[in-house]
């Protein structure tokens, strides 16, 4: 091949790559700005409405509670999956990935059947833990869908910590728990913070599973995504765009913090399948 042909081919290839990048970046910005352009002008008046205020409060409270539950469960599970060898570990690993692979709406149906139709669910309801068509169901749906992500992020952070560090701590007199709390946990702080942020942002945007388990009842189980859905279906674009704008601001903000915390290493999609 002549020098000119090689050069020509390289220029063409790089041009195609450049156009592809420009196209997809532009496309995403364009699509999102459609919402921002409509949502931002009326955002203050929309936020002042009772409905949006209810949705903001419900979204924030359920997502914060479900994130705390995720932390409580994910920390010990991630430690075990990273540090311990046990029978059935591969099986457990696969099971933990199932909620990630499932469409959230399917997870929601599964939870609805478990808590709505079984005697286990009825027993819990009798004890006051009613999940079907209640805000509590939103928390549970968010927890179910998100806890595997939290475990994945944390496990990957713990995997990065040299286990000999914990071992040295143990020769110095620490029990397993002490060496985990004093050495490993402080060292995975960034991963933990990244996990909390991503889990919380995902919980805030959770729609499918919560819709199935908790339903979409105005001013009862109306989170920001549900509010967006309800208002779109009745044609109240102003409120719908306000809810969407708030969700975009929270998502982009948390994505930004997640990246700062080194979250790009975990290579997970934010909204899953």
């Amino acid at each position: 091949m002549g020098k000119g042909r090689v050069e020509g081919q390289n220029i063409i290839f790089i041009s195609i790559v450049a156009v592809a990048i420009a196209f997809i970046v532009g496309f995403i910005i364009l699509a999102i700005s459609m919402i921002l352009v409509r949502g931002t002008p009326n955002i203050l008046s929309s936020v002042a409405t009772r409905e949006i205020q209810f949705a903001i409060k419900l979204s924030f409270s359920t997502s914060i509670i479900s994130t705390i539950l995720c932390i409580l469960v994910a920390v010990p599970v991630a430690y075990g999956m990273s540090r311990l060898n046990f029978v059935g570990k591969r099986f457990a690993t696969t099971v933990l990935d199932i909620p990630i692979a499932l469409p959230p709406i399917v997870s929601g149906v599964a939870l609805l059947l478990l808590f709505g139709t079984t005697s286990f669910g009825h027993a819990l309801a009798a004890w006051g833990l009613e999940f079907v068509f209640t805000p509590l169901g939103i928390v549970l749906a968010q927890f179910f869908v998100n806890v595997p992500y939290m475990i994945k992020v944390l496990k990957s952070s713990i995997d990065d910590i040299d286990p000999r560090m914990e071992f040295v701590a143990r020769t110095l007199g620490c029990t397993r728990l002490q060496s985990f709390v004093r050495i490993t946990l402080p060292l995975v702080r960034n991963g933990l913070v990244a996990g909390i942020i991503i889990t919380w942002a995902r919980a805030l945007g959770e729609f499918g599973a919560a819709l199935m388990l908790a339903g979409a009842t105005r001013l009862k189980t109306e989170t920001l995504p549900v509010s967006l859905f309800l208002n779109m279906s009745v044609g109240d674009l102003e409120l719908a765009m306000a809810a969407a704008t708030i969700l975009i601001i929270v998502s982009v903000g948390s994505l930004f913090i997640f990246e700062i915390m080194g979250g790009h290493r975990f290579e997970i999609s934010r909204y899953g399948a």
Partner: protein
Amino acid sequence: MLQLKGLQKKVGNFELKNINLDIHEGEYFIIVGPTGAGKTVLLELIAGMYQPDAGEIWFDNTEIGKLFPEQRNVGFVYQDYALFPHLTVKENIMFGLKVRGVGTGESKKRFNDIVSFLRIEYMLDRFPSTLSGGEKQRTALARALVTLPRILLLDEPLSALDPQIKRGFQEELRRIHEATKTTTLHITHDFAEAMTLGDRVGVLHEGKIVQVGKPADIFRRPNSYFVADFVGVENIFRGESKGRTVEIAPEIRIRTTYPKDGPVVLTLRSEDIIISREKLDSSAQNNFQGQIVEINDQRPLCRVTVDIGIEIVALVTTQTVEDFNFKLGDKVWLAFKSAAVHVL
């Protein structure tokens, strides 16, 4: 003090087979072996990272093979020191005292003693990532020693250091050992390190301890071809022994002091050989004529390789080579005593 009985462990590609060892109270014991011999696994077994597949580990009169690491009271210093990166030097050193709940007064005293002994007062507030190799090493040693371990386990403690400062740290380790009298088990792949530091040395090869002894004894009297080669004996020959004579090449017969018949390995230290222009009229019973095929000058010593039908390396001073004006191709005589020849 530390006794290993029939210890076996397989971890990944490393396998320890039937390790038997008896380390005395206050001793500086070195295990030396090539990379990949499973040396670190052995230390980690003693410290409790793994349970042995078989065999026992005894501290005095207690079997500790099944205890948790935190119950064994060992000090462990890794090759890369494994300092806690989120803690300062001071916090690293105080770590063991805190988790063991040592009282404030006692803690303070032990901390001050070790810090001044190792001369690290100046860096107490720094984080590990800002320390040099030598500073990290002293921090790791202080962190281990301050807990008064029954045994100090050192995993290649000098191999991460620059060659220039290595020598100084060898002396430092010796000084620490003399001051604290802590029983120490140190592993290395460097026999020279073992020679300098060890009260006794064990040679690890393919998962087994193949020889134990004082460093000089192992150096003088390696008990196998592997050990001889490993400790750097340059003249190792396989041959056929008949009485006190070993034929190592056609017509090349070497006199020895060990009567033996059959195949043997023969070692001869290069510094035990004398080179001369004329045949020496000496008591040496081995005299051979040959040709110089290589002169490797490493002042003040010089390795001269002479082909007498088989190549033999002699170590002489550079001064000698210059005085006699030895050159490549020169015909020379080699002389060595039969007692200098070691037969395996």
